[in-house]
């Protein structure tokens, strides 16, 4: 290992030194300063979609045809099981769900629904709690942990996810900045809509290996005008 490592690093350093000519190599501080400058430039280039409240932009983006998730808003997390029951009924699904082993979810009143914490390979419905969301792209964020196993976002056919409205970041970089310097979880999973594929003739088909349906329940932060809550869950483009 060490021989290949030193060969590669020496080749790089020799070439870079030749390319620089008389100029000295940049020190760590100079490299960091340039990287910081590049990061700052991103703010001026990003799409200007997100104006106003990020949670509202997030909801609008989620139900757009490009993402084709469904979404609704509830007042508190205590209303989540009600939303799940409504979803199961609307899709004529059996009242049996895998619940992500997060204490906030396990503490809820799931009466009327059979719940289990182990997820099956073809689990019909799984219920989860996202760490947050990103308005720009309608993306859910999951950090793997003992209370947030990775496969919950990938094995079920229907994935129903609660997310706090106060934890929606406007742009992709805002989320990255919020966790810069923090310990990196084993997996960060950014989930943007139900799974899909364009591998046969470029035709988009929903429901490849991951979930075929993604339903997001935004918790709290209701606005004065009744929005998606009143309309209920509508699958855009369907």
């Amino acid at each position, binding site marked *: 290992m060490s021989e290949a490592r030193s060969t590669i*690093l020496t080749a*790089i350093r020799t070439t870079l030194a030749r390319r620089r000519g008389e100029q000295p190599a940049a020190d760590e501080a100079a490299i960091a300063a340039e990287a910081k400058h590049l990061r700052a430039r991103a703010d001026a280039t990003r799409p200007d979609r997100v104006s106003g409240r990020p949670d509202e932009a997030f909801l609008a983006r989620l139900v757009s045809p490009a993402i084709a998730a469904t979404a609704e808003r509830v007042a508190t997390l205590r209303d989540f099981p009600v939303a799940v029951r409504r979803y199961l009924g609307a899709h004529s699904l059996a009242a049996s769900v895998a619940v992500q082993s997060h204490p906030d979810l396990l503490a809820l009143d799931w009466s009327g629904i059979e719940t289990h914490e182990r997820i099956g390979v073809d689990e019909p419905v799984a219920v989860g709690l996202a760490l947050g969301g990103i308005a720009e792209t309608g993306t859910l964020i999951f950090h793997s942990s003992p209370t947030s196993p990775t*496969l919950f976002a990938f094995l079920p056919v229907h994935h129903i996810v609660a997310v706090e409205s106060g934890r929606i970041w406007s742009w992709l970089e805002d989320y990255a900045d919020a966790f810069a310097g923090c310990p*990196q*979880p084993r997996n960060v999973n950014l989930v943007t809509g139900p799974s899909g*594929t364009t591998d046969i003739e470029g*035709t988009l*088909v929903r429901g*490849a290996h991951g979930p075929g349906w993604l339903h997001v329940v935004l918790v709290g932060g209701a606005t004065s005008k009744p929005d998606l809550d009143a309309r209920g869950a509508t699958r855009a483009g369907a």
Partner: protein
Amino acid sequence: MSAHARPGGFDTRVQAALADPLLKLAIDRTTGTARTKRAAAVAAWPGFAAGRDLGRDIKDHVIDNLGHYLVEFERNALASGAKIHWARTGQEACDIVVAICRDAGARTVTRAKSMLGEEIGLPHALEVAGIERVETDLAEHIIQLAGDPPSHIVWPALHKTREQVAALFQSHHHDPGALASVEAMVASARRELRGRFLAADVGISGANFLIADTGAVCTVTNEGNAELTTTPPRVHIVTAGIEKLIPSTAHAMAMLRLLVRSATGAELTQYTTFHCGPKRPGDLDGPGEFHIVLVDGGRTRMLAEGLAEMLRCIRCSACLNHCVVYRQIGGHAYGGTYPGPMGSVLTPMLDGLAQSQDLPRACTLNGQCQEVCPVAIPLPTLLRGWRDRLWRDGLEPAPARLGLGLWRFLVLRPALYRLASGALIRMMPAFARGGWIARMPMAGGWTRHRDLPRPPSRTFIAQYRSRKPLP
């Protein structure tokens, strides 16, 4: 040497591709959709041009400090519990992967699509080692069943029509069902691969980005197959080119905006995952071992030999989808791992210029590839660089050298040049029928596949001289 060097010369492969009407149909269906969707995504982002400049500058910054970022990435990845391996060549990388699989007692590996894996010949190496390989990306699954190499870097099965895919699934899948629609084909592949994901001993993926300040590896997919490949098995192996580095997660976000729009026209793939180290205490899933193989495979030579700009490439495939040559001949005719404009720049470096000398020549230099490249790689300039090398190394065939010598002789003698071009322009209309020339002596190579336009009656210089000067 590329894992997919195909028999026959470039000309033979091109003739075969042009003679295949289904191939043209298949290419048109996917690249047409890709171009339309990319155009819409770019139009909806007013900051695209500035974002593209930023993408180029981020990549150039990393390349200028590549040693620094490699060491930083290694330090952080090691701290996360990952094992880091360095490979000078594709062969070394394959040996490392096979050794890890053997140590793990692996009988079956699942694999998420990785062009680097194709480049280093990993499918072949696993086969030789007697390890069963299950491709999990739908397109890779299709070409594994067909026994084909990939023909595109984002849509490896682009050369297959839906009818051909249905026939493949019908004969290979255990429970194919009716397969009347693309949806039914996708569902059949899901059923077929479901059990394989959980039964694999090792999962192998590539990397879209290596994040220096966290030691994480970023993958992007739409199907969810990457995470199902990397999470259940006991061991996850990443193979990544050393040019994949990015300073931080925030910088990766700026690159993702460019990558996904340029590839599929979406704003973000359905699944963007940052993998960092093995399973943590208390985790309910995730691999017990996490290996990253950092592969040089000619990249340090590219840096040293004037191809540093090519190290910016993020493998989005926009240059393929917009290339008039790729759209006629498809990916297999190129003969290397990477087709299209980016492939014509990379293959001479990876496989040797003498073996792939036709690729830099098979280009109209129309500049479309550079225009759509999300990191502004000057692909036509790099291709001209290879043509220059061909000339200097004496690789141009004798007729081409003779023709260029003759042209040089004439062009340095303007009076003679005018005489010769005047004679040609007076002679050509004799072969024309209407406005086009379908056949002419010495022009068979051109007129076999298309007509020549009838030239105007006088040369440009003659017309220019007859014009009155502007007042």
